[in-house]
């Protein structure tokens, strides 16, 4: 069991309990929480756990800030979408699209990494921001290929669609293609998550942490800092692209708003920071919390805005469209006051 988790346990009883609850809830989501909306939320959590964890590989372990993570996510998603559009529905299309998206993401990450990281790490943040915005604009302008702002709607294999029903009922729930699709997403997400946990707890991961703490010293010991940083960038991009492919398979729709937008980038940042930078477990916790908050808290904000309609400024501040405002405030506060995130806090408590 511990070997499966690569030797890095949660190291806190409360954290372990929370993670077990999350894991079990996701594993049995279709049966525990019937209903379309709950299943959508569960799938979203699975995919964003992978996405946030892959970002943590870069931000938390290597200490590099990237603003292009949604770009890699989008490359994976558009890969599947384009392959499914042009090759027709089928598992081959999904496979080809996933691989093409993965290859494109890793290649692009390699180029960006070589350009910016060999000079100074701070270039990377600025260059990724510029490149990612160019790609976003490009995706919405080249409407002949990408469907522009409307995005692409395509068909996935019948076996994964809601129309397919098995003559099988488990715990009062009829097994449909949608549920099979969910378990595909869940299984791959889990595998990717465990793989990342393995990577960060390998000697390679240790070197990344050493570079984060003191790159000069790591170089002096004899590690090629640039090479490690670029490798981490490529790995992280690759995992993000795979998450994007899963997202495309689940949604059966890909557009700039659902994959490339800056808001998603902020979501990822917040997931990693709130959960705890520098632990893959933190990414899982942060992603779960954020997705749940997004799905259910925004309704609460709408209620609050309605209730305070008489007060002019307050109701505007509580408008669901101002969701980002509160995210921003939360983000700043957590960078200041909880730099180690929830996981760091819980571990510190357990260690005392």
């Amino acid at each position, binding site marked *: 069991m511990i070997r499966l988790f690569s030797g890095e346990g949660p190291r806190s009883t409360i954290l372990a309990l929370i993670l077990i609850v999350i894991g079990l809830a996701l594993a049995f989501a279709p049966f525990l929480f019937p209903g379309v909306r709950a299943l959508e939320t569960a799938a979203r959590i699975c995919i964003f756990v992978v996405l946030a964890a892959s970002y943590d590989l870069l931000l938390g372990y290597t200490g590099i800030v990237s603003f292009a993570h949604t770009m890699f996510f989008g490359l994976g998603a558009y890969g599947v979408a384009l392959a499914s559009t042009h090759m027709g529905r089928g598992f081959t299309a999904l496979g080809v699209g996933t691989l093409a998206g993965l290859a494109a993401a890793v290649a692009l990450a390699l180029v960006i990494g070589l350009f910016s990281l060999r000079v100074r790490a701070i270039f990377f*943040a600025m260059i990724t921001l510029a490149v990612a915005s160019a790609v976003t604009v490009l995706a919405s302008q080249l409407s002949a290929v990408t469907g522009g702002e409307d995005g692409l709607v395509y068909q996935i294999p019948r076996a994964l669609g809601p129309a397919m029903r098995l003559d099988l009922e488990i715990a009062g729930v009829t097994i449909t293609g949608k549920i099979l699709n969910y378990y595909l997403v869940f299984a791959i997400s889990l595998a990717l998550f465990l793989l990342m946990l393995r990577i960060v707890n390998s000697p390679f991961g240790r070197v990344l942490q050493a570079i984060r703490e003191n790159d000069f010293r790591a170089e002096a010991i004899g590690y090629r800092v640039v090479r490690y940083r670029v490798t981490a960038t490529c790995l992280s991009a690759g995992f993000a692209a795979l998450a994007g492919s899963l997202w495309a398979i689940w949604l059966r729709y890909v557009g700039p708003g659902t994959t490339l937008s800056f808001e998603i980038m902020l979501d990822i940042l917040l997931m990693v920071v709130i959960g705890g930078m520098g632990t893959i477990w933190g990414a899982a916790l942060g992603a779960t919390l954020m997705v749940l908050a997004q799905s259910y808290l925004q309704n609460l904000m709408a209620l609050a805005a309605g209730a305070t309609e008489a007060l002019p400024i307050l109701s505007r501040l509580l408008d669901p469209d*101002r969701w980002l405002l509160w995210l921003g405030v939360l*983000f700043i506060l957590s960078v200041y006051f909880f730099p180690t995130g929830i996981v760091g806090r819980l571990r510190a408590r357990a260690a005392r």
Partner: protein
Amino acid sequence: MSVQSEGAPAHRPTFAALSARDKLAKSAPFLLLPVLALVGLALIGTWPTWLTLTVSGLAMGMMIFVMASGLTLVFGLMDVINFGHGAFISVGAFVGISVLAGLGDWTGAASLALNIGAVLAAVIAAMAVTGALGWGFERVLVRPVYGAHLRQILVTVGGLIVIEQMIHVVWGPDEIFLTRPEMLKGVTLFAGAAIETYRLLAVVVGLVLFVAMRLVLRRTKIGLIVRAGVQNGEMVEALGYQLRLVFVGTFVAGSTLAGLGGVMWGLYQEVITAGMGEEMMILVFVVVIIGGLGSVEGAFIGALLVGLLQNYVAFLAPKLALVSNIGLMTAILMWRPEGMLPVVRAK
């Protein structure tokens, strides 16, 4: 050399003359501009079109330079990279345009003096507000995270989001359309080409600012301290100067310039959105990177290159205009990985 103190060696130090190649390498960034302009002329072919495009490219470049100059100095001085700089651009634009809207009588009148007066009032209001905002931003957000790049980037991005959303709260969620003051509308005929009057004004304002900034940096004591601080901050502090105060001053000055740039850009585009600062930040970063972090001259050349290239490419191959800046950045970084005129070395 006229006074020789006792004991000093009685010889003049001689400097080896730079070889032609070194000279060329030193001035190559400055030569890029005319080269780009000439290549543009050759490809575009007709003189009036080229002149129109060049002036609008220069106008755009000047405005980007106004926004970028503060950012690059702040980085050079304190190694602080402010991702929230774009928020000042948006705030400046919204404050300035609100003032202009309030002075409708002045902007509507066909009198150059009243029009300029209204624009000046808008600019002053915008610069005052963004300056104050910059001061608060530095104090609340940036100061606690000196020396930690990672947290700096995260915190300033958070600041950008919050300020941008506050603009939505104050001015509403919609974009605001505006019209330029009466006398700044229309075109001026110049050397056989029709050029928008406002663009000429933008070029003049940008040039004046650049010259003024250079004079302050090269000829005044405060400029000397700033330049010395960029090169070696610790040494300047060891000499007894409070670099932190200088830095706060530079930060505020940079914020006011971003506000000015916001007003200019808003008048240029004739529409303002809360997200405009964020969009401009992309160009500003490209400019700061290709110019060399910390270099005002580099940012100036970079901004003009970006402006010119964007306008030429938009005319020659509209599809490529979006990626032209990324292409430019790639090319320059392949040639000089630290930017054209890097100032801050090995920090």
